[in-house]
């Protein structure tokens, strides 16, 4: 993220990957995330049963035998539901973070680049929104738009914007004060070039770390909304929604509760570890 990174960005890539893989958290995180993407991509081929087909072989079958992770209250195969759930979960994470990251980057960079009253308006409104907390923003959005998975994802994405904008603003402010940036201005670079060629590539490492950790936060928040019944609706095999349904059968079929919970926790752990690993391999100070 220093001027040096700026000059030899592309060449640094192989060393970066080696550093990421040599840190235990980065390696484990990457493995979990790859496994998830694999499950999501090939859910049709991997799943032994149709995830929404009822009565595939009896209700409340405990894990083992024909049904690796048992069946639920409608006789649906849990393993297949979890596999298809990974697709929904990754999509939730990607779309929500996409919303927060795109708008956050734009707001943060414009505020740091333009300064003056634009900066004041953008950053003060970010401060106000930030103090509302993400949960309240997300809940208000769902209250207005009505409960659905799509609205929950939009709500979580919008709720994340203030944090992304703040972080991007701080990172961009550091860059604009560096000699190379001033040199580009005196060399006659226009605003578009300054922002896209100089500012963006240099705030990106910070923002990639924030976004990776943000996938965890977004997945947790969306699963929480679905758990409350404010997100995914039946018969979606969304993990938070599956957990909510398990409450009624907590004594009879505890695996309905444990399995989706483990799935969410592992996914979130994967992105958290990957984010931690990325941070230490991208940060020249922590690199040592």
């Amino acid at each position, binding site marked *: 993220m220093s001027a040096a990174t700026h000059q030899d960005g592309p060449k640094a890539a192989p060393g970066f990957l080696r550093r990421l893989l040599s840190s235990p958290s980065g390696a484990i995180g990457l493995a979990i995330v790859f496994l998830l993407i694999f499950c999501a991509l090939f859910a049709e081929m991997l799943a032994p049963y149709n995830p929404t087909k009822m009565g595939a072989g009896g209700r409340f079958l405990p894990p083992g035998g024909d049904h690796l992770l048992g069946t639920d209250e409608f006789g649906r195969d849990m393993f297949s539901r979890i596999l298809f759930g990974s697709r929904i979960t990754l999509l939730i994470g990607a779309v929500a973070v996409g919303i927060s990251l795109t708008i956050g980057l734009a707001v943060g960079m414009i505020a740091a680049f333009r300064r003056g009253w634009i900066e004041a308006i953008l950053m003060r409104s970010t401060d*106000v929104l930030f103090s509302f*907390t993400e949960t*309240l923003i997300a*809940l208000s959005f769902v*209250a207005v738009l*009505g409960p659905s998975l799509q609205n929950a994802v939009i709500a979580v994405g919008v709720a994340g914007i203030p944090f992304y904008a703040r972080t991007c603003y701080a990172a961009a402010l550091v860059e604009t004060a560096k000699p190379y940036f001033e040199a580009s201005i005196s060399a006659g670079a226009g605003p578009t070039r300054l922002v896209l060629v100089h500012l963006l590539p240099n705030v990106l490492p910070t923002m990639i770390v924030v976004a990776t950790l943000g996938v965890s936060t977004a997945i947790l928040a969306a699963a929480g909304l679905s758990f409350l019944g*404010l997100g995914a609706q039946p018969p979606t095999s969304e993990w938070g929604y599956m957990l909510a349904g398990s409450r009624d059968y907590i004594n009879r079929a505890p695996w309905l509760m444990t399995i989706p*919970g483990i799935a*969410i926790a592992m996914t979130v752990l994967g992105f958290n570890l990957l984010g*931690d690993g990325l941070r230490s391999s991208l940060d020249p100070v922590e690199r040592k």
Partner: protein
Amino acid sequence: MWRFLGTRIAMGAFTIWITTILVTLLIHAVPGDPVQIMYAQSQGTTPEQIEEVRRSLGLDRPIPVQYVMYMERLLQGDLGATIRGGQPVLEVILQRLPNTLLLACAAMFIAIVIGVPIGFLAAYREGTLTDIALMIVAIAGISMPHFWLGLMLLFFFALELGWLPVSGNGWLNLILPALTLGLSNAAIFARLTRSSMIDVMSQDYVQTAFAKGLPKALVLRRHVLRAGLLPVVTMMGLQFAFMMGGAIVVENIFSWNGVGRMAVEAIFQRDYPIIQGFILTFSVVVVCVAIAIDALYAVLDPRIRRS
């Protein structure tokens, strides 16, 4: 110090003012006719009654007029009446708010009592197996969804072992929800405390203290602890807001009669006056706690206290 606090209070007042505007606009952002939607669930409402409600809510006036009306009533402590039952919203909220605050405070206590010592121990033994093991536990704790932790605690302690009641509003009922919220936040405090302590320990004045040959325990107590805990105090304001947000989910698991459970019910019933009141109350509480934490911070940090 007073200038520092004055800025924070002004900023908080500004936030609450913006909330009142957003809350008034909220009902207009609802796709379709909010009055129709609110009454869609109750049968036998005549068109005349719907018009009556529209008038009483002021929804037939221009938006700026509605805002002025809303503020006039708000300043008199009138948050409107609930759609179902017609009770005063303020009364409904004030009945439940103490429960939510109690839950959030209990959870905060648990989070600090567990999280800060763990973080301190990990920093003290930085790089050793103890440190690594504690930090693995912490990252696992952060990754665990609190609604899942809540269900697991409910399953083991209330259903399997039968030690604690499943739901209700007594003191025993507070234990499980407070643990659920507290444990997930303890992990955040542990990580923060650890990095903050390590940061302070590498400072020159601490190195000097060690170099003078002072015993480690003394250096930690006298020089590291106070400075290292400052970021933790700053974090408490934000954490409290998280707890209030987390309480929404946890209250629903344990049927704890707080404002979070009320808000989710109101969203399902499309009871917009309650939702508006909830958003306003939530931001007032969060702003007040943030100011209180800033005041505490100002007292603890001599650089601000003497400025």
